């Protein structure tokens, strides 16, 4: 150890792997990996020199490491700041609450981190670096496969694993046997001078290259997926249906290259939606089953099929998938106007305000209503629906349970101009009250809590609204996302490559056999040494196995006296060993 005190205190050299040993060992340790060597020297001037230098830096391991680090740091804000792509409402809320910060964030792209310029820049640079790294490494690797393992270093004793013994066999025969033995164990072996050089574990490098290439495949798949995808939402009330065309979607977005003119013809009808909830215990109200029973068709004259759609089991149809997203209640109402004519009859989806117990709000718009003297009198109703009313005493219109145990609909009514004829699109879930007047009774706004079957009469004989029943609605996401298969292929290849890269050892073994003359007698000294890409406990084990395998062809010299350790000058003069076992000089050396 004292010999090491002159090494700098920098502990980084502490875990130096065999790759560094390469510098000690000359060619023997070279190219045991295709990792690029570090090079931080500055370029000679001139644009070409700089360009080359820049490219070198970009494709170095050091910069790859830096970019990986930046990528993980860059991904953080998107998980802490609301993202437009995930929850636009929250983003707006954030902007209202923090106006200055909101502006700064907006400029930095913090509300869409994963499609922002700077995040894209990081990963694009990383992938350019990756390609710049992969291509030369692949070539280099092909070169290594064509070439041969480097010859034995002069002093095998300096390698991480080493063993030696003496034999009477002829060195040539030993080497021939060694080459055979190594080849049988799937080493690439060849003879060079008085030694056999062998190498194994090239699959490690293959795995590493496959892994990195697979990362590129996954990025491409991701890009394909986002450029050609389409995704839309549709809310459907029981009994209603959907057909796949742009106008049918409630909302729709698609990638830059998606062609909305050639959408696959398919569609489905929601027959029934089933939901059950935990009835007791601390998790009362937690959903247990969500199921949408649908009838679907695909193709121009497709036959109809029935199927359930559940949360984890989307409907796979004509290259698209239909996912069940959420559900709610749609109170059924019948509206009569002043003439006594039924001007509206149907189920109106109400949107849950409280996702747990489904206190919902909604509006009913009746543009075709008239007064009893035939004047235009558009009607609008607004109110709450609760599936389980807390009871008269509870005093509030909050639901107590998500299932339909005690459904109550509370509405107030407006009349005038709904604004639906203006041509401007408006939400079906909100009333535009600018030109509407609320009905009042004795100065107080008209409002009524209705049980199914009950009716609310409007003042002045303007008509009535009856709460006739309740239907479920379910909302679906319909997505078309190409590139999924490619992404999965990339992922599996990455995983296999990674396993190869991390679990396979690449190692070299050299076996030397030379005739020496000791005390006037000729004898063959066999030396074996191994070198791995990184320090491994298995390398010495393997070397021992190889030595055992070679032993029949290079039997220990029967009279091998203790003195055979002639090349171990540090040994104490050995005691004559006639005892039961070999002296174990390693023990002595270590003590």
């Amino acid at each position, binding site marked *: *150890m004292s010999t090491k005190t002159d090494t700098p205190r920098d502990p980084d050299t502490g875990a130096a792997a065999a790759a560094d040993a390469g510098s000690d060992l000359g060619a023997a340790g070279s190219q045991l990996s295709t990792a690029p060597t570090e090079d931080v020297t500055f370029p000679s001037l001139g644009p070409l020199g700089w360009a080359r230098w820049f490219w070198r830096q970009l494709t170095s391991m050091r910069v790859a490491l830096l970019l990986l680090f930046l990528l993980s740091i860059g*991904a953080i804000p998107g998980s802490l700041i609301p993202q437009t792509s995930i929850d636009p409402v929250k983003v707006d809320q954030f902007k209202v609450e923090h106006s200055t910060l909101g502006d700064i964030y907006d400029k930095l792209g913090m509300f869409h981190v994963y499609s922002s310029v700077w995040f894209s820049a990081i990963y694009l640079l990383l992938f350019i670096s990756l390609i710049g790294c992969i291509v030369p490494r692949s070539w280099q690797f092909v070169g290594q496969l064509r070439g041969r393992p480097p010859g034995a270093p002069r002093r095998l004793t300096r390698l991480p694993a080493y063993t030696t013994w003496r034999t009477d066999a002829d060195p040539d025969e030993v080497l021939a046997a060694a080459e055979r033995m190594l080849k049988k164990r799937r080493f690439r072996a060849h003879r060079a001078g008085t030694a056999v050089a062998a190498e194994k574990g090239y699959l490690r490098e293959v795995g590493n290259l496959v892994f990195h290439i697979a990362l590129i495949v996954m990025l491409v798949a991701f890009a394909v997926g986002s450029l050609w995808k389409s995704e839309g939402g549709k809310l459907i009330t029981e009994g209603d249906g959907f057909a796949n065309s742009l106008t049918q979607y409630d909302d729709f977005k698609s990638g830059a290259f998606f062609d909305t003119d050639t959408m696959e013809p398919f569609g489905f009808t929601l027959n029934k939606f089933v939901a059950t909830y935990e009835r007791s215990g601390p998790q009362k109200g937690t959903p247990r089953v969500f199921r949408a029973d649908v009838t679907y068709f695909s193709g121009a004259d497709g036959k109809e099929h029935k199927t359930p759609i559940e949360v984890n089991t989307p409907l796979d149809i004509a290259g698209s998938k239909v996912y069940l997203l959420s559900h709610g209640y749609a109170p059924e109402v019948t509206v009569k106007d002043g003439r006594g004519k039924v001007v509206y009859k149907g189920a109106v989806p109400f949107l849950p305000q409280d996702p747990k117990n489904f206190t919902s709000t909604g509006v009913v718009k009746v543009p075709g209503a008239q007064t009893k003297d035939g004047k235009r009198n558009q009607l609008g109703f607004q109110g709450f629906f609760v599936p389980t009313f807390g009871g008269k005493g509870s005093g509030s219109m909050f639901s107590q349970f998500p299932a339909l145990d005690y459904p109550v609909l509370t509405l107030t009514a407006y009349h005038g101009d709904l604004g639906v004829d203006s041509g401007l699109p408006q939400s079906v879930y909100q009333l535009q009250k600018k030109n509407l007047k609320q009905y009042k009774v004795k100065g107080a706004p008209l409002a009524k809590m209705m049980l199914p079957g009950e009716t609310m009469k409007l003042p002045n004989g303007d008509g009535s609204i009856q709460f006739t029943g309740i239907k479920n609605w379910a909302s679906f996401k319909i997505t078309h996302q190409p590139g999924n298969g490619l992404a999965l292929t990339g992922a599996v290849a990455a995983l296999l490559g990674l396993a190869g890269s991390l679990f396979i050892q690449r190692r070299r073994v050299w076996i030397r056999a030379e005739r020496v003359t000791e005390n006037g007698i000729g004898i063959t000294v066999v030396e074996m040494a191994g070198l791995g890409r990184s320090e491994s406990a298995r390398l010495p084990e393997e070397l021992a196995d190889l030595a055992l395998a070679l032993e029949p062809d290079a039997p220990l010299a029967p009279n091998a006296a203790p003195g055979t350790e002639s090349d171990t000058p540090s040994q104490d003069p050995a005691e004559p060993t006639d005892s039961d076992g070999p002296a174990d000089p390693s023990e002595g050396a270590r003590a």
Partner: protein
Amino acid sequence: MNVAAAANETLAHNSNLLVYSAMAVYTLAFLAHMAEWVFGSRSKVGRTAAALTAQVKAPATVSVVAQKGGTAVLERPKVITKSAAGSREVPDGPGAAGGTEKGDLYGRIAVSLTVLAWALHVGGVITRALSVQRAPWGNMYEFSTTFAAVAVGFYLLLLTLKKNVRWIGLPLVTTVLLDLGLAVTVLYTASDQLVPALHSYWLWIHVSCAIISGAVLYLGAVATLLFLFRDRYEAKLADPTGDQPGAFATSVLERLPSAASLDKFAYRINATVFPLWTFTIIAGAIWAEAAWGRYWGWDPKEVWSFITWVAYAGYLHARATAGWKGRKAAWLGLIAFACYLFNYYGVNIFVTGLHSYAGV
């Protein structure tokens, strides 16, 4: 009307009892480990410093003859191993017991108690699973108890394989107690069924891999942390002119394995788990595709899994990059594990996303 069977109250109750008993026994194991360290500190033998000096005499390049007396039978040959240039050649410390008999006795008692506690602990996890008739990984309480059980299980497995890992016993048992304490107080959720979004066999695959990855990575992180201490300690010893480690630090650190061994242990664990973690994310993506209609949507949980993954990739790269081996890589390894922890506690508690668990 409820399809899912009501939770079996008795089993759930037994599960809680088992977990509490396990905690009691872990506490005893903790005390026994403390005794092991205390008695071990009185040992005057096996001082690393002494070992260091002895080591100096041994030239690193020795060759040995593999032979057996006069017979020509080659026994399993002795292979001389030599660390790569630049490494310190420091031998491993003698372990917490410091070579003392009394320390060793307490150490053995600690391990036996840990085995008993673990058996109770695993019983608790299994009865919990039986009480709800599903994988016991539906909420943070269940996740935490399973996590600790896997970590201890893996440690005991290494012990069974005769690996030199008893030094990790004290830190492990301490943190397992913390984890379980947190689980039964703050995170406790009565046993119940899962929301429909979690009804999938991917729950078994994805979540079990996530738990195993984290629990094993935790052992790697402990080793990495100890590596940083031990490495500093060895660096100080190697430079007699600089300042020397204090008495307490010496007493603790000299008994640990060498920095090189700790580093190697941590690397093996991280490198072995990395593919599993990669698989966890892939499985999660497949599940997300089935449940939400996209395999990747930058949900906070996904983001942090990704960050954790990239951080571990960075760690592996660092080890292959000159100038980043050793301490710098170790720091990266710790940061990577911190990302895993944040993904679990931080994202579940502070960030809302699609990955919500029933009652935290």
